[in-house]
């Protein structure tokens, strides 16, 4: 079981992801520099958080042209599990591997705090160990997380069960005050139609062990391991 963690110039959560995969789960893990096209035989690809290319132009807009993204797209097209966390999610959106876009947070500020999420889809390789409808706490840290798409695309996402996480309050209720960035329909994370590509604004990599006070995120990584073990 091998994780590839893509490193763009400006990625800053690559080591967090490596730590989770390698040190906590005992899996093989390798960094893949954005100029390389070789995913080194990985079974799972992670696009980590950070500020790829300094977020110049738009978050994720330039990273999408990195040579490695061709390989990531080909890997995803063959059904390979791909997870984009925060900036990694923004890259997947810009690359068209996931539908929609993110805008600047409605409060116009960088938001760095814990949020609560309702798990909406447990049929992806990154969420199968969660409970459908369960509430998990994860940290966010972003300026552009205000997810949007056309009403038709949003309806399609809902219909197909592609909404994976939604912001909620600690009791699991949806309320505008529990939405940290103004995202349409409180969407925090989505999957592609096939379910193998998942992206989310919150950081499971930053809450993956009890010593950090929260290990709710480890299940996203464990889910991938269990999904692959069954293949």
């Amino acid at each position, binding site marked *: 079981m091998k994780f590839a963690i893509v490193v763009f110039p400006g990625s800053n959560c690559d080591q967090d992801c490596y730590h989770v995969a390698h040190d906590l789960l005992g899996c093989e893990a390798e960094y893949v520099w954005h100029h390389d096209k070789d995913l080194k035989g990985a079974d799972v690809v992670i696009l980590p958080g950070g500020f790829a290319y300094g977020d110049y*132009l*738009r978050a994720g*807009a330039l990273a999408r*042209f990195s040579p490695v993204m061709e390989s990531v797209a080909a890997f995803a097209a063959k059904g390979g599990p791909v997870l984009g966390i925060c900036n990694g999610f923004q890259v997947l959106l*810009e690359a068209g591997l996931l539908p*929609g*876009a993110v*805008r*600047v*947070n*409605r*409060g*116009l500020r960088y938001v760095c705090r814990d949020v609560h999420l309702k798990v909406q889809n447990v049929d992806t390789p990154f969420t199968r160990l969660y409970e459908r409808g369960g509430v998990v706490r994860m940290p966010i840290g972003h300026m552009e997380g*205000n997810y*949007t*798409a*056309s009403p038709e695309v949003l309806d399609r996402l809902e219909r197909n069960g592609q909404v994976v996480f939604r912001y909620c309050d600690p009791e699991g209720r949806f309320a505008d005050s529990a939405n940290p960035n*103004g995202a349409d329909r409180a969407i925090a994370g989505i999957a592609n139609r096939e379910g193998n590509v998942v992206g989310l604004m919150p950081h499971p990599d930053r809450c993956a062990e009890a010593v950090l006070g929260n290990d709710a995120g480890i299940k996203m990584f464990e889910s991938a391991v269990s999904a692959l073990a069954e293949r």
Partner: protein
Amino acid sequence: MKVEVRVYPKEGVLDPQGRAIASALVRLGHSGVQDVRAGKVFFVEVAGNDPSRAESEARKMAEELLANTVIEGFDVKVVS
């Protein structure tokens, strides 16, 4: 040739930045301000001297990179 590409939030797409600027303008006393949309301008220099070619190339640049057409519209003008 110099081409100007303007990129702006699409009609109907919430523009938190524009909204904040609008309320700041109202606070400054410009009480008639009803709406602001905030965008970006790119001044692109391209080789050659065929304006229609420069324009169509800039249009392609906008579609491929300068604008995110999910949320942004754009227009292109050859300046000189």
